[in-house]
Every structure is written in structure tokens, then in C-alpha cells.
């Protein structure tokens, strides 16, 4: 599952992610990171489900980090898309690729909702869903 971790100024300097990784043993992967002295925002992929996932999310919350689940991020209008590829190489996480018959495919799991592809598309075929990443993760 992909989640967005939002660090407030009070906790931004603490090694919370490292702590969660070492305690749960989960190989959490950072997909995107914006951190400065004021606040931090990470998009991470947690390779887990069920109880273990809930436990990890609860640990972040206890440490004062806001956790938002990223569900659907992009909508691709297949009527407009011609599978050119203009969105593919600008995508920072390789979430957009061509499949073996040259059709654009989209890997929801890899998308971090950055929106680069929206401007890159010459056919206005990609929309960033408004609530992308703003869905509060189910609390345990």
C-alpha cells in the first residue's frame, strides 16, 4: 500500500521512518520525499497488508505523523489517449509504460500523484483525481 506521511515541524527531525522499519522489519520504500526544516512529506510504499500494515500505520500515528492512504491517483481518458508516450519519460517513478502491443499502461501502485504527466500529455487525456492521496487511511 502507498501512503503519504506528513511530518509536522515538531517531529520532522526525528528518525521515525527508520524506527518503524527496524521495529517491524518491513522493507518500506520511499517513492517521493520533500523535507525541509519546517515540515516533511514522504510518499512510501509499505509492502504488507492486514494486521502488520495496521501496526506500521499505528506506529507512525503514535509518533505524531499524519498518514494518508493513496488510492486512485490518475484517470486516463482512453478515448483521448493515443499511446504516444509523451507522459512516460517525464514520470519520475516509471508508473507509465508501454505494454508489448504499444498501448500505454499505468501502474497505480507506483504513482505518487505528482502531476507531471498531466502537463506532459498533448491530448489532455490525464486528470489528477482531486482527492488523490487525501483519503485518510483506515485507522486500526
Amino acid at each position, binding site marked *: 500500500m502507498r501512503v503519504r506521511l506528513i511530518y509536522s515541524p515538531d517531529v520532522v527531525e526525528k528518525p521515525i521512518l527508520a524506527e518503524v522499519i527496524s521495529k517491524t522489519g518491513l522493507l518500506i520504500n520511499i517513492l517521493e520525499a520533500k523535507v525541509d526544516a519546517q515540515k516533511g512529506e514522504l510518499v512510501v510504499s509499505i509492502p504488507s497488508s492486514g494486521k502488520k500494515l495496521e501496526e506500521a500505520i499505528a506506529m507512525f500515528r503514535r509518533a505524531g505523523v499524519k498518514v494518508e492512504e493513496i488510492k486512485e491517483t490518475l484517470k486516463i481518458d482512453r478515448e483521448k489517449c*493515443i*499511446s*504516444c*508516450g*509523451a*507522459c*512516460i*519519460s*517525464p*514520470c519520475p517513478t*516509471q508508473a507509465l*509504460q*508501454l505494454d508489448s*502491443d*504499444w*498501448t500505454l499502461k499505468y501502474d497505480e501502485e507506483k504513482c505518487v500523484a505528482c502531476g*507531471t504527466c498531466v*502537463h*506532459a500529455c*498533448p*491530448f*489532455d487525456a490525464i486528470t489528477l483525481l482531486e482527492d488523490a492521496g487525501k483519503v485518510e487511511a483506515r485507522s486500526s
Partner: protein
Amino acid sequence: MKKDECIRSVREINEKIKCGDAVVLTAEEMIRLAESSGVKAAAEEVDVVTTGTFGAMCSSGVFLNFGHSDPPIKMTECWLNDVPVYKGLAAVDGYLGAAALSETRGFEYGGGHVIEDLVSGKEIELRAESYGTDCYPRRHVETTITIEDLNQAILVNPRNCYQRYNAATNSSNRVLHTYMGTLLPNYGNVMFTGAGQLNPLCKDWNYETIGIGTRIFLGGGVGYVIGEGTQHDPQSGFGTLMIRGDLKRMNSRYLKGASFYKYGVTLYVGIGIPIPIINERVAKTATLRDDEITVEIRDYGVPSRPDRRPVVKRVTYADLRSGKVYINGRKIPSSSLSSYKMAKEISEVLKKWILEGLFLLTEPVESLPRKGSLKPLRVRRREPIVRDLMRREVITAKPNEGVEEAARKLIVKEIDHLPVTTEDGRLVGIVTSWDLARAIAERRQVLSEIMTRRVITAQEDETIDAVAWRMAQHNISGMPVVDEERKVVGIITTDDVSKRLVEGISRR
């Protein structure tokens, strides 16, 4: 058999098409056949190879005849959905260019979109103005039209179907929005365009079968090559075509308006050309693969004319299509602007048309030029350059200089920019009055702590136009002028540029 000895004529091929006996392969199928049986056997067996391309072709447009209203108008200005139509023609003739921008919607909508909307049968707002004459008394007209209402809608594209196209990357430190799409900073990606092994002119590399009069698949309908395109550059292998076709018989699946963010609008055009395999040499080029067609990756981070953009690397279409290329040992993602999927579909549709006897081949009335190359535009009028406007007495500072001392320099000399240099004058940073104000507030001591190290610079021989654009892009008000060794030779500010502008205006 000699390579240029005629295997079959176009007339013979057409007889076979009419009888349903012609052997027609798409370019992809021809490549596979040649790989398994060899070019010679493929040449003996195959009559026609079909090609396809579907990409942005800005030099496209449509001639329109609106018909006369009552009372009639000699339209001197005209808009379709607020996109200006060229009206330097007779009363109700106009030319709508694909790259024309809407006057109300900017980069979002333009000529390419109007063409697509016309083909889809949508209603279009027509508005026209005139000065009124005895024979054309009306001075204004506003109505809606569809493609059905027009007497003619003829697509005439001055330059389509580039044989190959150089790829693009970006060495600069900011995102560039170009006609080659989004180019990420620091060689973040590579964009390319072109159908490569499916491209019509690649498959007839020596222009032996494609020429004036060649019948083609154009935008889902039938069109014709009417000559070489503008910027046709055969000696470098960058041939182009000028084409025409009846827009009324086209299909919006193969003609699509497109917007490039912060660049402009264009039209994606679908073109397919049949290559009659008249001899072994044509067969050979018809089997060219992506890994045999090379292009250069050019650096769009350098804002000079296209042929002077530095070549970063030479690669093949196969490299580019693999999704990654290596630049300076780094793996860089690459992707296409044109659609290979649609190009392939076009080659398949054209094959079907020929097999069904709906499309016959043509012999060119005249060949395309095989000689000639591109010339740049010489700017003969002297344009102001940095050297003309820059100030040569530059006040500089050293990295270990104190913040307060530097601030005093700015006040005494009434300047806002302080380049920081080494002992031998090499630029290592810059501080502005704003940086110093903040440094004093934050009680910082030495310039090296606060200076900006990545300095945006100018060169003496650059035009003022180019440096003014750069200052605006980076939101800065001045730049040190440096030589090849990065030694500071002057400074230029927005004040210098605007003073020049004011002088220029008051002199008029």
C-alpha cells in the same frame, strides 16, 4: 540480378491488386520476412510494403471555402472558434493553420483542434470582419458552420512526414516545456519522435517510388504527395513531404489537435504510404529496422538554433524505443511523442485497403529532389548584444569578505549585484542586496556562507533578447558576464536593458 533492375512495375502491381493476387505486407511483416528468408527472396515475393506514421506535424492546415452570404462579404479577418484564419486570399477563401492559437483559450485550443472538430462534424463558430465594398457591402458576419456547409475543406500540409527526427534532452537546471514535450533538468529524460522502421520515407530511403502524385493514406482518407516539403533536407537524410487531401473524407481518429504545455498547439496527422517493391534496392530499404536508423540526441538546454544545439549522443530508434538510453554512463528514460501503436495501425489499414482492391498504387509524376540542404536565417540587421550594454567596471568581492563590508560596497556604489570571485577573477558566486539584508538579519559573517554558488551568467556575444529571456525565466535582475575561463568581464542588469529600450523608443 542487379539491385536496380526492375522486378515489377507499378502497373503490374495494380493488375495484381485488381485480381486480388497482390502480396502486401506491412513494414513490420516485411522486416520479419527478410530476417527469415533474406532480402532477395523477400523482394521476389512481395509486391507492396505498407508504412505508417502518426505524430505532431505543425506545418499542416486546411484551405476552406465558406460560400457567399447574402449580402456578401469580402472577409478581411476571420476566426473559427476564436482561432484566426489567414485571409490574404479571395473573399471567402481562407487557410487555417494547425499551429494558430485561439485568441481566447491560448495554448489550450488552436487550429489543430478546429481541424479535428471539423472532421468530427462538430458545429464551429464563424466570425468575420470587413471594410465593405460596392460589390461586398457586408462588414460583419457571425454564424455557425459544420464541414458539410463548406464548399471545400482541403488539407494542404507544407511539411509532413519527416524521414527521421533528432531526439531531445535538457542539460539545464530547470524543466523545459518544448515542442518535444516535457524535458526534465540535468538530462532527466530523452524525448524522441518518428515512426522509425514504419516511416514512409525511411522505407524508400532513396525516394525511388514516392514523388509528386503518389497516392497515400491521409488522416483516414485518401491524399496525394504534391512535392517535397519545406525544410526538405535529403542530403542529410531528413526528407519531408508536402501533401494534400480532402478533409471531408477524413476521420478524426487519424487527425488530432494537440496542445504542448507552455509551447503551443499542433495537429497529429496519420499518414501511410505504400511502397511498391520495384527493385531489390527498394526492397532493401523497405527492410530497414529501428536498430539501423540513427538520430542524434540534442541538448535543448542550450537556447540556440536547432542545428547548433549540442549533440549529446548518436543513437538508433531501437535504443530510444527500448525506454532507456545511456548519457555519461547514466541510465536515462526515453519515450516517444509520436504513436508507434497508431503508426502500426495505419500500416495495417492501408494493407487492408490494398488487399480489398480499394486502393491502387501510383507512379510518381516527378521524383522528389535528392539534393539540397538547409540554410539558416541570417540576421543582417545589427541586434544589440551584451557587449553593447554591459558595464565593464564590475565591483566584485572575495569569498572570505565580511557581510558588512560587502553591504557597504553596494550602498556606496549604488548597485544591487555583487559577483564573488577568486583572486584571479574567476566567478564562484553572487550576492544581491536582498541576500545581504537577510544575512545581516540572521547575523551571518562571511560571504562564502551566504552567496549563491550556481550563478546564472551571460556571454559577451549573446543577444539582449536572449539574456532578457533568461533573466525573466530565472526571475533575476542581473547577471555577471563571463568569458570562456569564467572570468568576470562585465555585468548586465534589467535596468541596463530597460534603459536601452526607453532610449530606442524616444529616438523614434
